[in-house]
C-alpha cells in the first residue's frame, strides 16, 4: 500500500510542479535583456499608440491625474481597481523594463509573474506589433507625468483572488499572437484589421462573452466576432454588415465620419462609445479610420440573427402629423417629449440630431441602450475640443417606468421598425442600476 501511494505521489508531484511552474512563470518577450538605451521613438508616435489603445479610458478616473488608475470595475466576483501606469517608481510602472512592460500589455503577466485580470484587454493587445509596444513604453516612461498614488486592493475574497488560475484562463482563451497581415487583402484593410482587433480592442465591448467572461472570438474569422453584446447597461451593437442591427446600411464614409466627428446621418456617439470617441477614435488619422471602415465593411452580417431588412414606413409620420391627439399613449409621449428634435418623421435633423426611424439602438435585440439614454440622456460629445450643441436630455425624473416602456415600445414599432416591446420592469431595473444613489449601481464591468 505504501509503495502504491509512493508510486502515485511521484506523478502527482510532477504534475503539481509543472502546474506551479506554468501558472507562475514569466513568459519570454522579444525584448528580454534589452535596456532603455535601445529606444528611439518620438513623443507623437508613442502618444498616438496610447490613443489607439485608449489606455486613459480605464487607467484614469474623472477627477484623477491621467494614467494614475483607481477606476472601479465590477466583476462577478467583486470590484477590482485599475492600476497606476504612470512612471512613478514606487507606485507606478517606473521600474518596469521594456520586456516586463511587454509582458503586462501583450501577455497579461506582471513583473513578479502575477497574472493580470483580463479586464486589461491583453487578449486584444497581444496583436500589437513590437514597434508599437516599444513606442508605448517610451511614451509611458518618458512623457507621462509620474504620480505617486498607491494601487487599491480588489474586494474579491480569498480564494477567488488567487491570480495563478488566470494563467489557465489565458491558455484556454487567448492565442497570444501578434497581428499577421492577410496577404490576400490590401494594406489599408490590414491596417484596419490590426487597429480593430489589436489596440482598438473593439471586441471588448462589441463581441459577446462566454461563461468564463472570455470574448467568444478575437478576430474576424469567427461569426461571433463584433456581433453585438450587452455591457455596462449599454448594448454595444453589431459592427458587422447586419442590415438592421449592424453597419449594413452604413458606407465606409459614414464609419469614418462617425469615428472622426462623432456623428453621421445614422447616429451620434453615446454611452460607452461616446467615451471611446472622446478619448480615442477622433485622434486617429484619416488613413487609419479609412482602414477601420474598410475592414468592418468586410465582415459579413447574419440575416438569420438580423431578421428581415428594415424598410421605412410613412404611416407613423402621417399619424403624428395629423394634428389630432394620438390614441397610443407612447405616441402621445413622443409628440410631447421627443418630436421637437427627432421629428414627426423620426428622421432627426441631419447629422446633428440622430434619426429614430431605422436606428440600430431601436432595432437591436436588447433595448438597454434605448432605455438607458432615455433615462439618463446623452453625455457630452467633445469633438475637436468643442462640445456638442444638441444633447439628449435625461428624462429620468419626468417620465415613469411605464411611460418610458410605452414610449419605447411605440418607437420599436414605428416607421417600419420591428423590435420587441419594452416592459416597465426592464426600465425599472435599469433605472435602479443607473441611479448613483443606488447600492446596486452598475460600475464599469469587464472590458
Amino acid at each position, binding site marked *: 500500500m505504501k509503495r502504491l501511494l509512493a508510486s502515485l505521489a511521484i506523478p502527482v508531484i510532477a504534475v503539481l510542479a509543472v502546474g506551479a511552474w506554468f501558472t507562475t512563470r514569466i513568459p519570454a518577450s522579444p525584448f528580454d535583456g534589452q535596456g532603455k538605451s535601445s529606444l528611439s521613438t518620438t513623443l507623437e508616435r508613442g502618444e498616438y499608440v496610447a490613443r489607439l489603445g485608449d489606455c486613459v479610458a480605464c487607467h484614469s478616473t474623472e477627477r484623477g491625474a491621467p494614467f494614475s488608475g483607481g477606476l472601479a470595475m465590477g466583476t462577478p466576483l467583486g470590484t477590482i481597481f485599475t492600476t497606476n501606469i504612470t512612471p512613478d517608481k514606487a507606485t507606478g510602472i517606473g521600474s518596469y523594463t521594456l520586456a516586463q512592460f511587454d509582458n503586462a500589455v501583450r501577455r497579461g503577466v506582471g513583473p513578479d509573474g502575477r497574472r493580470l485580470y483580463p479586464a486589461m484587454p491583453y487578449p486584444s493587445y497581444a496583436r500589437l506589433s513590437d514597434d508599437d509596444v516599444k513606442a508605448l513604453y517610451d511614451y509611458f516612461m518618458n512623457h507621462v507625468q509620474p504620480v505617486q498614488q498607491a494601487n487599491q486592493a480588489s474586494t474579491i475574497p480569498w480564494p477567488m483572488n488567487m491570480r495563478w488560475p488566470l494563467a489557465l484562463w489565458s491558455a484556454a482563451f487567448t492565442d497570444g499572437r501578434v497581428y499577421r497581415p492577410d496577404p490576400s487583402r490590401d494594406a489599408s484593410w490590414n491596417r484596419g484589421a490590426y487597429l480593430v482587433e489589436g489596440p482598438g480592442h473593439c471586441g471588448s465591448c462589441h463581441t459577446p462573452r462566454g461563461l468564463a467572461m472570455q470574448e467568444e472570438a478575437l478576430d474576424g474569422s469567427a461569426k461571433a466576432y463584433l456581433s453585438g453584446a450587452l455591457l455596462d447597461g449599454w448594448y454595444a451593437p453589431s459592427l458587422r454588415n447586419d442590415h438592421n442591427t449592424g453597419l449594413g446600411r452604413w458606407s465606409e464614409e459614414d464609419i469614418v465620419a462617425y469615428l472622426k466627428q462623432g456623428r453621421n446621418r445614422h447616429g451620434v456617439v453615446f454611452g460607452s462609445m461616446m467615451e471611446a470617441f472622446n478619448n480615442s477614435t477622433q485622434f486617429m488619422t484619416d488613413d487609419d479610420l479609412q482602414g477601420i471602415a474598410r475592414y468592418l465593411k468586410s465582415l459579413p452580417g447574419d440575416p438569420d440573427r438580423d431578421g428581415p431588412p428594415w424598410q421605412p414606413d410613412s404611416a407613423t409620420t402621417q399619424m403624428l*402629423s*395629423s*394634428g*389630432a*391627439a*394620438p390614441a397610443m399613449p407612447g405616441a*402621445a409621449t413622443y*409628440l*410631447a417629449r421627443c418630436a*421637437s*428634435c427627432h421629428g*414627426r418623421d423620426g428622421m432627426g*435633423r*441631419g447629422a*446633428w*440630431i440622430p434619426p429614430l426611424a431605422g436606428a440600430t439602438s431601436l432595432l437591436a435585440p436588447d433595448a438597454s441602450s434605448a432605455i438607458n439614454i432615455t433615462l439618463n440622456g446623452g453625455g457630452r460629445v467633445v469633438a475637436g475640443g468643442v462640445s456638442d*450643441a*444638441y444633447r439628449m*436630455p435625461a428624462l429620468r425624473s419626468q417620465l415613469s417606468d411605464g411611460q418610458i416602456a410605452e414610449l419605447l415600445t411605440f418607437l420599436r414599432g414605428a416607421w417600419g421598425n420591428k423590435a420587441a416591446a419594452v416592459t416597465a420592469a426592464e426600465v425599472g431595473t435599469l433605472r435602479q442600476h443607473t441611479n448613483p444613489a443606488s447600492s446596486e449601481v452598475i460600475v464599469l464591468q469587464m472590458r
Partner: protein
Amino acid sequence: MEITVNGAVRIVDAEPDTPLLWVLRDNLGLTGTKYGCGLAQCGACTVLVQGLPVRSCVTPVESVAGLPVTTIETVEQDDVGRRIVEAWVAHQVPQCGYCQSGQVMAATALLKQVAAPSDSDIAAAMTNLCRCGTYNAIAAAIRNVAQG
C-alpha cells in the same frame, strides 16, 4: 446659406449647426420669437416649418434650408393666424406675454390641421409652457376660433 423666412429668401452667414432661433433673432432681427429654455421643453421659440410647429432653439439651421419658415411677425397674413390673434386679443390671453408668440404659432398650426379640435386634441398639441398659467384662456380662445 439660403433660408426662406416669411416668404422671402434670406442669405445668412452662419455655421450649419447654429440653432434656427439664433439666426432668426440675431442674423435677421426677427425678435418676436423668444428664447425660453433652449431645450425644446417650453415652446417659447415655436415657429412653423412647412406649416408644422417646430421648436427653433433645437433646430439646426442647415435642416430647414429650402423649407418655408413662418414666424410670429407674419402669422397674421394667414387667415387662421389672423383669427387666432384676434381671439387672443378678445380673450385677453397674455399676462406677461413672453410665451405668447410661441403659443399663437402652436395654436395656428393646430387649427390649420384640425379645424374642429377636441379638448384632447388641444391638450395634445398645446404643450407650450406658460408660467403665468394662461392655459384656460388659451384653450377658450382656440375653441372660440374653431367654432367660427
